[in-house]
């Protein structure tokens, strides 16, 4: 846990501070230095791209955007998914049936296709990416949370709370939700990489973040085009993407233990 959290923190810090420390900026083009490999000269630590822009600064910027999209999208899915799932599971009966059939209906829609349509229709709005990715992820979250709630609802401590007259919202938020935390946290750390991948995929298709802004996905896309002559343009953002994804996956397991009261003293 410490390692993966450390790596993530280091990358995040670098992404925030890095561009300041570098003499270059993400827009500036240097026509004397097109497609340079990583070098100290001109502080092009990650080299330059085909327009002569410094790739170190652009990569750091890409990480910021990617992480932000991922975290915001996951939070959107967390809030909607947990509330929706816990209410459906706890209230149960007809309410549950209607709520879950709605989720099933949304599942049936080809989401990537829908997102692409949205992107085309609304002129590639940056905000829309959050909404689109969040909208995909909350469905899974709602199902998982509902399933857990169904079994938690039958636990005797919930009966005990009902007997003393604890209100339904308080039961959901005080008794059910904390016991969901373990599984929700694990799932969020899995949705973050998923969101990163969807964002990268959209950017790769040219539908995500737009120039001159960039993200890791967009950088990989650009790198693929220059793969033969300038392999660093692909390798650096791609391997950073892989490291971030893996760190999140490892972090999930560790966080589950952390949120379980059994490991608290």
């Amino acid at each position, binding site marked *: 846990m410490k390692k993966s959290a450390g790596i993530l923190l280091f990358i995040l810090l670098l992404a925030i501070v890095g561009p300041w420390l570098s003499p270059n900026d993400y827009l500036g083009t240097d026509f004397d230095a097109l497609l340079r490999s990583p070098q100290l000269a001109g502080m092009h630590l990650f080299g330059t791209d085909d327009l002569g822009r410094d790739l170190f600064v652009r990569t750091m910027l890409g990480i910021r955007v990617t992480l932000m999209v991922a975290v915001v999208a996951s939070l959107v899915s967390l809030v909607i998914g947990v509330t929706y799932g816990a209410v459906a599971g706890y209230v149960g009966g007809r309410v549950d049936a209607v709520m879950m059939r709605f989720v099933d209906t949304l599942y049936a829609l080809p989401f990537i296709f829908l997102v692409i349509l949205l992107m085309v229709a609304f002129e590639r709005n940056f905000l829309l990416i959050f909404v689109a990715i969040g909208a995909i992820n909350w469905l899974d979250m709602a199902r998982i949370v509902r399933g857990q709630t169904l079994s938690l609802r039958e636990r*005797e401590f919930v*009966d005990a709370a009902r007997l003393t*007259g604890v209100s339904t919202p308080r039961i959901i938020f005080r*008794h059910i939700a904390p*016991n969901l935390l373990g599984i929700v946290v694990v799932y969020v750390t899995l949705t973050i990489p998923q969101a990163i991948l969807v964002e990268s995929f959209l950017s790769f298709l040219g539908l995500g973040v737009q120039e001159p802004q960039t993200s890791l996905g967009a950088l990989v896309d650009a790198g693929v085009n220059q793969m033969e002559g300038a392999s660093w343009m692909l390798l650096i953002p791609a391997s950073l993407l892989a490291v971030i994804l893996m760190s999140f996956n490892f972090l999930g397991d560790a966080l589950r233990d952390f949120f379980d*009261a059994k490991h608290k003293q």
Partner: protein
Amino acid sequence: MSLLKIKNLRVSYDDDVVVDAVSFSIKRGESVGIVGESGSGKSQTALAILGLLSRDALVSGSIVFGGQDLLTLSERKLDRVRGVRIGMVFQDPMQALNPYMRIGQQLRQILIQHEIAAGSGADAKVMAMLNKVGLPDAERQFRAFPHELSGGMRQRVMIASALICEPELLIADEPTTALDVTVQAQILNQLEELRDDTALLLITHDLGIVAGRCERLLVLEGGKLIESGATVSIFGSPQHAHTKKLLAAAPRIDRGEILPAVGGRTVLGVEGASVGYASASKEQLVAVSDVCLSLREAETLAIVGESGSGKSSLVRGLLGLIPMRAGRVVYAGKPLHGPVQARAASQRRDLQLVFQDPVSALNPQMRVASIVGEPLLVHEPKQSAAQRRARVVEALERVGLTAGLLRRYPHQLSGGQAQRVAIARALILKPRILICDEAVAALDGSVRQQVLKLLRDVQAESGLSIIFISHDLGVVRSIAHRVAVMYLGRLVEVAETATLFSRPAHPYTRALLAASPVPDPLVAPSRVPLKGEPPSLLKPPSGCAFHPRCDFAEDACRESRPELRELNGTRVACHRGEDIS
């Protein structure tokens, strides 16, 4: 020569020693019991013999069986001993049977695996074995899946699978703990009948089970063997203080003080209560039908019955946790109806429930302080945090705990502490009625005694009325003023405790008493237990629901249902009441 010889067995996990320098031996054909409270290392000892300990266990010492040390055998060689020469029966047969395989197939596989029989020979052997363990309609059960059998029948199948290779040693780890008392008696008798010259190692927490059935006893405490010897002498003159404590804590149905009936006014009345569920296949399952009961002030009314008798459904119905089909509940002159959320706050605070399993009754993510304080938060929200804390501490001290536990989480409590916390939560609002649903069933003997004493003390001080649900007649005898016996959702007998234990009127009550194990080797266990198992609630028998299992049944019992009626000072639902008593 001894069949099994264990020397200096030690099992540890990291620094945690669970079995410490245990040595004993078992002769051919002998029956030996291992008793101890939870955590005494009795199951770990059994698992060590079978080589089934988890991988991170450190084992030392020697376990010599038939001349070879099992601890040094390779997994492959061990497979030729385990299941063939040593049979095993575990507590939960549902865990031990493969849910996707038919019963016959599972047993046949054992024979084929160990090359004892094959083809139709194996089938014939399996059938013979199933008949031998008393599985009714073995022909059909051969093709059944485990979920189609009742708990008792599954345990019979487990015994069949343990004995089918004719082992020299049978290890049974709490084989009847998950079963009803009448079925327990059947299974234990069956085990004894079938084992012939197979040695038996019976592991249990229940002294009543080993008393009449094992020749020798081993008493474990904290991983150490503290006493061993002939059963009669251990029961007669226990040497070790812990053994004495265990014996003193074992509830008995045949001696001890009985509380006299109390004559206060009625605080709770239940009339014609029925509770039902719609089963998965939309069939109507009636768990409780037409129950009439009353509870007096400062009285403990016990409700006894086997699983499926409807005792838990009844109290859940009257508390409003599940809907009642019909009937009325009157508390302090006012009707209680509707789900618990819809009831008046004052009614809610006056009726509290204590659950069987404290682990699942306490929210694992909350600290003791918030768990016990939550009812105050709901009912007296104007109190300051300091006032609330003082009340919580007072409630904890009331149940014999200290303020030091306030910041603990439930998993940091022992079973007894957790149950006290649950009781403190139930008592903090000073309810008039406390309902205990198997509240001491999950506790070890000495802790159980303390909790029972606590309940009696609270009752004596505050005039609390208690409904005490239990399957254990020994416990009931020590705490109840009156007893109501339920069978298949109906009351069959209601009587004062003294009357019920001395002159049981209903044949079912008699059977329950006969089947309850007595922790005394000089009292022979019942050899003629009740036949059969409780029928399904989906297809209740005609007439008197008990008639298929009743020795006194006659035509009238099959045709019409007996109503609860007054008979010699008790209320009993039996056509033949006069002839029996």
